[in-house]
């Protein structure tokens, strides 16, 4: 377990439950753990174990019921809706299972989206987007629409979009869940490079033990509680 002073994610006694009709369903119960800066961690567990909920909380798209949740030193549970949006834009890169690209935008425009929230000029944005697409091996597909790309290529576009604004943390929810083995390997290799070469902290939720092996640390969630396993 990482030292909390160096931890980019600091979680203490975190709880989260959902209301389903009249019933309150607990999803996370008293989670306490830290993620060190620069870590590549895989969260595993059966469906409904709360791993995606934990990821959503860390990424600032959901709010905990109680407990402490500090990401990059910011207590994100205290941020307002608008502040949280700005915080996500600056600190978090998202990678989704189904890529979540805008179908009407080209690969270039999809990658450019997060930069529209920054003060960068078009020229600066263009340079960065082109560099990011070169890094994921899609320099020849910039003007292609998502429907013209394979699943693996779409996920690479999504990864370029995730790191384009240089966030500190990348969150990936089943990033290889919709891909064949070869494409999955390529995606995992890119994530590994992002972790090693660009020192991004990566938090990946996965069902796939093979994918989890790319991570340096694996955590299991079971019925809202965390086990430690390396």
């Amino acid at each position, binding site marked *: 377990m990482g030292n909390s002073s160096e931890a980019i994610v600091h979680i203490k006694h975190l709880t989260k439950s959902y209301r389903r009709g009249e019933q309150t369903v607990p999803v996370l119960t008293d989670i306490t753990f830290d993620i060190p800066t620069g870590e590549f961690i895989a969260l595993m567990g059966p469906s409904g174990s709360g791993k995606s909920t934990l990821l*959503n909380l860390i990424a600032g798209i959901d709010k905990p019921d109680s407990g402490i949740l500090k990401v990059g030193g910011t207590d994100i549970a205290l941020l307002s809706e608008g502040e949280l949006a700005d915080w996500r834009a600056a600190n978090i890169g998202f990678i989704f299972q189904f890529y979540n690209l805008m179908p*009407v935008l080209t690969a270039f425009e999809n990658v450019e989206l*997060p930069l529209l929230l920054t003060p960068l000029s078009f020229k600066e944005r263009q340079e960065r987007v082109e560099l990011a697409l070169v890094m994921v091996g899609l320099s020849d597909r910039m003007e292609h629409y998502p429907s013209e790309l394979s699943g693996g290529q779409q996920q690479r576009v999504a990864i370029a979009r995730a790191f384009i604004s240089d966030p500190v943390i990348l969150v990936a929810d089943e990033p290889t869940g919709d891909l064949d083995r070869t494409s999955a390997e390529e995606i995992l290799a890119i994530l590994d490079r992002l972790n090693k070469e660009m020192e991004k902290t990566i938090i990946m939720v996965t069902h796939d033990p093979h994918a989890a092996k790319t991570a340096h640390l694996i955590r299991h969630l079971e019925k809202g509680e965390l086990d430690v396993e390396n």
Partner: protein
Amino acid sequence: MAIPFSYIIRNLITRKLTTLLTAGGMALVVFVFATVLMLEEGLRKTLVETGSPDNVVVTRRSAETEIQSVINRDQAAIVESQPEVAYGINNVRLTSKESVVLISLIRRGSDKSSNVLIRGVGKTGILLRPQVKIVSGRMLKPGLSEIIAGKSIADRYNGAGIGEKLYFGKREWTVVGIFDAGNTGFDSEIWGDVDQLMQAFRRPVYSSIILKMNDPTKFQALKARIEGDPRLTLGAKKESIFYAEQSQVLSNFIRYLGVALSGFFSVGAIIGAMITMYASVANRIMEIGTLRALGFRRNNILSAFLTESLILGAVGGVIGLVLASFMQFFTISTMNWQSFSELAFGFTLNSSIIIKSFVFALIMGLIGGFLPAVKAAHLSIVDSLRAV
């Protein structure tokens, strides 16, 4: 910076058919709205331009129109001798004692009749209306049963064409000329010699006196003198105002009917836009969730969807206005409820109507898109991302 405009436009283009159908619905409403305003403007323009600001119409004080007015010869002589009356060539006083009557004529190619106004004019009658030009044949000669017909009448009524004859006032009258009054109300009249007409209809009195002022700024003095003279029971109005007032009743009716109709239709178009926009939100829930996760704020989402529906409205507005502009090629005729005679007028498009119609279209888009946009902006990010 907000969500890129290309994203909004391409989403509309992707759903071409839905976009066109929704915009088409709004275009029809804008068409109705613009057409009605154009009709009202055409009527107003026709009647307002009928009158000249230098001319004064004197009628019986209680009469709203020339048809209702009676002026006897003594009173006419007093009015003619007012010092504000202008003089023309050969020191002719520029006044025209006129008598108007309504006759019923049969439309060409049909057996339906309408009231047409016959105006008996003095020698100077045509000098007082410089917009009236003889376009075919010649001017009528005083003392004869000759008439000239406005072009709207000549084209549309049996016996009103050049060389044709009309029977009224127990006499036969020959149409010796056709005049063009520049799309004013006179185009819907037939003119004859005032003395001949009064004899034929056995009328001892005039209906109105038209006079040109030597100095239009003295109108108030003239009006006060005519209206204050105990021998006269007459009122004076500037000719332009006299005709503008004649357009009031019909113009108001057209406006209220048109606005009410457009109002009802617009409810349908707004509901159409709302359904389209709700569908657009429903189809893009995951995209909305993704954009929010990437850091776009609620108001970015709200403005993106509002912009989308405003574009729908704008497209509808442009199509509707283009369709409505073709209406300028049509002329319609109807009964002017104040003179009870036929009046022909066209559809007139001006910049004010273009702006009003376009703003109307945008408002329809905005109202239609508002609730869907609010819904889109308030979706939970987590729920939206699950909607794959």
